[in-house]
């Protein structure tokens, strides 16, 4: 039983996914049951993390037999909790949308759970093979999810673009992984970490392997110049799927990138650090610049998520414990705030059938609470105190300065300013304009309200006292 405990979250989520898929076949009328089962699976999965987390700050000890294959240390638990909570928020927010659009509810919930399974698997695994399987489980379900609305050609188009670029990128990533195996003779991160070095100048197979890995992960986390699929896929997918894609697979990619580069390639840090820093600067800046001219909110959120990828990458590029800690903090704050903002976008989109900025005109008059909440989330995404996003940016900034990366820190600050206009445009529409007479008032299902309140608690709570999350992130980084 002691061994089974380490796999319990995975087993629970798998069982919930299979149950949803099977019950969907017989319970076509009562979608709500499926929704509850999916939520229960996520909640039980979260609860099953508790016994492992209670074993102390160092996290649960690694399994003796699979010491280099499967870990349930602080790092794994942190990311598992993050993934489960983000899927839970997506599930909370999407119920009305699914009913209105007549999406296949069972398939949506089952595939969301399967993707979550892949993500939490990736958080624990210290073996390239298992990391790859997790990555592909997330990817393949993601392709299918973005094409879920078969009545809408835009959804199929989004799925096509996501699939083609995702499949090419995972092949590139895999080629890099195969070279790493050939160079080190090991598939475990620790085994690779002992041997893998890149010679001066980055020439040869080792440098090539790192470059291939960077390209592959660059697609997964949507870093410039591998971000082409993001705007179209985000705009075309059903909105709950967009919300999921903007957080889940991205955070999972970061988890894999962090454990692979920090545990597996530490001796090549001087090679990948400047590369990552360059990609981070490009990603932040181009994401923000492209977002400035967007009028479709889903597309705008796509570009904004690209720029946030740049910030998180900057934390990795600093490559110090401070940097990793700031990166984890930023990622967690971003996940909550972005999903809560998407909950509102889902609710508005369900009623108004569109996501143009004009659809948000006068929302402040019709529903002040939601408009204020969305404003707070945007303030957090910009990084204005007292919100979680401010501290995320502050810690990243501090980590970069501490390591002497003044240029990187400067670009971060400039980008914070650059991101103000496009978020402000939405806020202005909500509060300055008056609602179209034809626009019906937006109603808020309880799930959306729950997700929004969770987002508000995190955005403002961490803004007023960022200590708890920071301490958790520190413990995680120390366990790395």
């Amino acid at each position, binding site marked *: 039983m002691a061994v089974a405990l380490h796999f319990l979250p995975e087993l629970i989520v798998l069982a919930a996914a*299979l149950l949803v*898929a*099977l019950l969907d*076949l*017989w319970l076509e009328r009562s979608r709500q049951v499926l929704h509850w089962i999916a939520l229960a699976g996520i909640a039980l999965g979260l609860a099953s993390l508790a016994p492992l987390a209670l074993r102390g700050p160092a996290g649960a000890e690694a399994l003796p037999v699979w010491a280099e294959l499967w870990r349930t240390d602080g790092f794994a638990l942190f990311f598992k909790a993050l993934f489960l909570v983000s899927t839970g928020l997506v599930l909370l927010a999407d119920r009305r949308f699914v009913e209105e659009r007549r999406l296949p509810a069972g398939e949506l919930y089952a595939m969301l759970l399967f993707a979550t399974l892949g993500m939490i698997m990736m958080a624990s695994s210290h073996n390239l093979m298992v990391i790859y399987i997790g990555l592909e489980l997330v990817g393949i379900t993601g392709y299918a999810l973005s094409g879920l609305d078969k009545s809408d050609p835009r959804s199929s188009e989004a799925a096509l673009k996501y699939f083609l670029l995702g499949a090419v990128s995972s092949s590139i990533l895999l080629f890099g992984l195969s070279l790493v195996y050939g160079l080190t003779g090991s598939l475990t991160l620790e085994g690779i970490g002992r041997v893998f070095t890149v010679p001066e100048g980055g020439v040869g197979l080792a440098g090539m392997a790192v470059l291939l890995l960077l390209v592959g992960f660059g697609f997964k986390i949507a870093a410039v110049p591998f971000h082409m699929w993001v705007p179209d896929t985000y705009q075309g997918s059903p909105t709950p799927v967009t919300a999921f894609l903007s957080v889940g697979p991205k955070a999972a990619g970061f988890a894999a990138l962090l454990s692979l580069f920090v545990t597996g390639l530490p001796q090549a840090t001087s090679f990948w650090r400047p590369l990552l820093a360059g990609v981070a600067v490009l990603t932040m800046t181009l994401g923000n610049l492209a977002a400035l001219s967007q009028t479709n909110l889903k597309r705008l959120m796509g570009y904004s998520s690209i720029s946030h990828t740049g910030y998180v990458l900057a934390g990795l590029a600093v490559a110090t414990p401070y940097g990793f800690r700031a990166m984890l903090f930023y990622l967690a704050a971003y996940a909550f705030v972005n999903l809560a903002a998407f909950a509102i976008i889902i609710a508005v989109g369900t009623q108004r059938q569109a996501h143009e900025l004009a659809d948000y005109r006068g929302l402040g008059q019709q529903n002040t609470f939601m408009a204020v909440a969305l404003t707070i989330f945007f303030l957090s995404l910009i990084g204005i105190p007292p919100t979680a996003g401010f501290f995320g940016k502050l810690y990243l900034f501090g980590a970069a300065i501490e390591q002497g990366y003044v240029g990187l820190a400067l670009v971060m600050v400039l980008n914070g300013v650059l991101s103000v206009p496009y978020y402000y445009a939405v806020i202005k529409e909500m509060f300055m304009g008056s609602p179209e007479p034809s626009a019906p008032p937006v109603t808020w299902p309880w799930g959306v309200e729950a997700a929004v309140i969770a987002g508000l608690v995190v955005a403002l709570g961490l803004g007023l006292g960022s200590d708890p999350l920071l301490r958790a992130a520190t413990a995680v980084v120390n366990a790395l």
Partner: protein
Amino acid sequence: MSEYLEVGLFLVASALFYAVTMFMASLVSPHAPTAAKQSPYECGEQPVGEAQVRFGPNYYIIALIFVLFDVEAIFLFPWAAALREVGMAGFIEMLVFIGVLLVGLVYAWRKKVLSWI
């Protein structure tokens, strides 16, 4: 390297054999085409319509499902070869794996993918 030389020689020889036989056949054989001889061979039946027809999308779905289940069988072979070493735990793990596949099969069955139209 000598074993590759033999393979290379064999390749050249077989290509030559093919070319020479076809050339000889074209020299010797009579050539008198008729409409019936030129038509595609369909087991003695009269060919109807074009050869390039559209298949129903149902065939694609059945093919996709076949590919999936076919490839999953890959894991059964190494498992069967190593069953003595992996013991009871390995046996139970494989049962779980096959159970998951079974759920997939039931899913396809209930979604009426397997029924022939």
